[in-house]
């Protein structure tokens, strides 16, 4: 019996030691450049973080699929300057602290370029942690101001919340959507608040008034009846709903039969049709997005064809952002004249190069400013019978 006790004590102690050594000591070679044996190309680790599970999983999956497709196309064409692009995604479930530890895991694994986070909040939490590393962060879809604020090496592919909010305000006037506007958004989400604030700041410029503002947050996102009743009673002619698709689906289902004014959302509405229980509830809903899969541009059509063939689904704006981000990295590598032989000052040269490039991506022509933002156009779309089509003013 005594021997048994001693043995278990020993085993327990060993377990703890092994646990700490295996999990916690760094391998010490995170700066190394591994070489792909099959092609002889140097591997360039591009790490992304996003919700691959949870309510926002559709955004994470879309961005990841777009980025992976782009990397495959580039690698199939022989890589870039002797580099093979490796895209790895870690799941964050959309939570900020998970995103930080996912970033840490990427760095342990030898990440060279970061795609930041898919959502604004998670990117914002990574940006400060990444500042010391000087690594280039090019987030495909984090749109809030705070997401890339305070880090000179952080850039984004999508347009920023203020730009999108201004565009939304302008479209309310240009398309005569109404002069009395209600707003419904998530008060604890950077994306939603950013859009609301920039939208509201332009109300005088575009001649509409905001007659009702209703909000929800993560702990109250089950029951929207109070908010829907208030909006219905406010006499608004259109309701601006800058939120994500999961909550938008819930809003539309609960509002069915109670609210008969047009609902107008932004790029967060992407994927709405896969989330809503009855697609007819989405009829007439408007969405602002810089990407349309039925655009006649040849590069867009090539992307849509390749994406559809690979994933058996039509790409949304998030997939296009992910796809464009990888091509922007390729362009930056070429501009900086980095190659597998010459990786001196990799981070600095990448950051400098990204400000100098101009690429024509699937979401339009892009070039980056010093503050990390990109300039683009947005289009107004409408949901009709389970499809997304360009909006035609009535």
């Amino acid at each position, binding site marked *: 019996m005594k021997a048994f006790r001693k043995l278990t004590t020993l085993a327990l102690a060993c377990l703890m030691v092994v646990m700490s050594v295996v999990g916690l*000591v760094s391998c010490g070679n995170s700066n190394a450049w591994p070489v792909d044996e099959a092609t002889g190309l140097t591997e360039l680790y591009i790490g992304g973080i996003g919700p691959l599970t949870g309510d926002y999983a559709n955004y994470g999956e879309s961005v990841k699929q777009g980025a992976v497709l782009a990397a495959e196309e580039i690698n199939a064409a022989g890589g870039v300057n002797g580099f093979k692009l490796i895209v790895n995604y870690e799941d964050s479930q959309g939570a900020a602290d998970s995103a930080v530890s996912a970033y840490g895991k990427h760095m342990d694994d030898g990440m060279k370029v970061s795609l930041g986070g898919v959502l604004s909040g998670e990117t914002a939490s990574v940006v*400060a942690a990444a500042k010391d590393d000087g690594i280039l962060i090019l987030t495909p879809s984090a749109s809030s101001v705070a997401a890339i604020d305070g880090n000179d090496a952080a850039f984004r592919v999508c347009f920023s919340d203020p730009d999108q909010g201004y565009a939304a305000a302008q479209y309310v006037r240009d398309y005569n959507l109404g002069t009395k506007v209600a707003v419904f958004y998530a008060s604890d989400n950077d994306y939603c608040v950013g859009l609301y604030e920039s939208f509201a700041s332009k109300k005088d410029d575009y001649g509409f008034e905001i007659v009702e503002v209703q909000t929800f947050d993560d702990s109250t996102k089950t029951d929207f009846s109070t908010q829907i009743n208030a909006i219905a009673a406010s006499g608004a002619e259109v309701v601006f709903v800058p939120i994500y698709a999961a909550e938008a689906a819930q809003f539309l289902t609960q509002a069915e039969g109670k609210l008969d004014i047009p609902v107008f959302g932004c790029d967060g509405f992407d994927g709405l049709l896969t989330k809503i229980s009855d697609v007819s509830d989405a009829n007439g809903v408007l969405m602002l997005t810089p990407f349309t899969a039925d655009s006649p541009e040849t590069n867009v059509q090539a992307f849509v064809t390749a994406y559809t063939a690979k994933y058996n689904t039509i790409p949304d704006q998030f997939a296009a952002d992910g796809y464009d981000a990888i091509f922007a990295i390729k362009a930056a590598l070429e501009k900086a004249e980095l190659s597998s032989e010459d990786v001196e000052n990799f981070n600095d040269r990448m950051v400098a190069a990204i400000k100098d490039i101009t690429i024509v991506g699937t979401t339009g022509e892009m070039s980056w400013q010093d503050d990390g933002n990109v300039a683009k156009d947005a289009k107004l779309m409408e949901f009709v019978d389970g499809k997304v089509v360009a909006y035609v003013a009535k």
Partner: protein
Amino acid sequence: MKTNLKQKLLNKTALTMSGIALLYLVLCLMVYSGMASRQLLLVILPISCHIVLAVSLNLVVGFLGELSLGHAGFMSVGLFTGCLVSIATVDVLPMAVRIPLSMIIGGVAAAAVGLVVGLPALRLKGDYLAIVTLGCGEIIKNVINNLHIKKGPLAGVLDGALGLNTKTIYSNIKQLLPFLIVLVLLVVWVVLNIQKSRHGRAIMAIRDNRIAAEATGINVTYYKLMVFILAAFFAGMAGVLYGHGFSIIKSAEFGYNFSIELLIIVVFGGMGKVHGSVIAAILLYTLPEIVLREFSDYRMLAYSIVLIVIMLLSENRRFKEWKDSVSLKKLFKKMFKSKTAVAVTETDAKEGGADES
């Protein structure tokens, strides 16, 4: 003489303190030599904060015997107050002054809230008190969620449910580690000393029989409030350091779920056992974050099963016997023995015998 020294070293306080100090010494070596992986660097701050939170919650739950489900609320009061102070003084004060100062202010703010929450505790018992502390925690969360700073030099730093922008005071773990070590050692030392002191005995007397304690002249009101205030003070200090390690902090994180997580640590480590709380904080934090990460999808599932099984085992007589045989005290004793290479004396044999009986 040697035996005397040994007995002195083997007392609980010294053992726990030196164990923790040793742990942090190893951590320091790893962190400052650059040997530590990112994953380790990332868990040091939350684990240290969990240790402080669990040990301070143990004061309320283990020593005073009152169920508190609002500890995270105290933490967030300290966090938001202290970090705001730190943000306001970031350009004026050097870090070595700024962080301790904001910790004290945050701690005092949390203690003040602890006093307010402690007052109903005087009238309520058991589950009624538990639900009031839970309610207070949720109220704190809700109130902070609706606070905005719109004017003055700090405009925009705190924006309601979007949280507190702590980018300007963000400090990496190399900068925070000294403060963490001091805080953890301080809290453990204070709580262990309370336990041994007259006050500690009075608090535990209240737990075991309030009426009898009152009859012997113990000021129940005073001690109950003292425990709540002290626990909140430490939780607030931990919160301030926690806030410095992230770039954005939302009060929604500190709801009842967080409090329950802390309660689990306390119960897991043993009620009223300080070293138990420390070990449980480390194990229960690393379990889902590092050890179980390999199981990815099944991570939290495995965690919940471990939780249930351990609770069921803790009531199992045979398991209790086994657990007593591998107690940490003995582990330390064995390590101590091998390190000093002192021959096994009769005293050891006696001690061992006494422990086993």
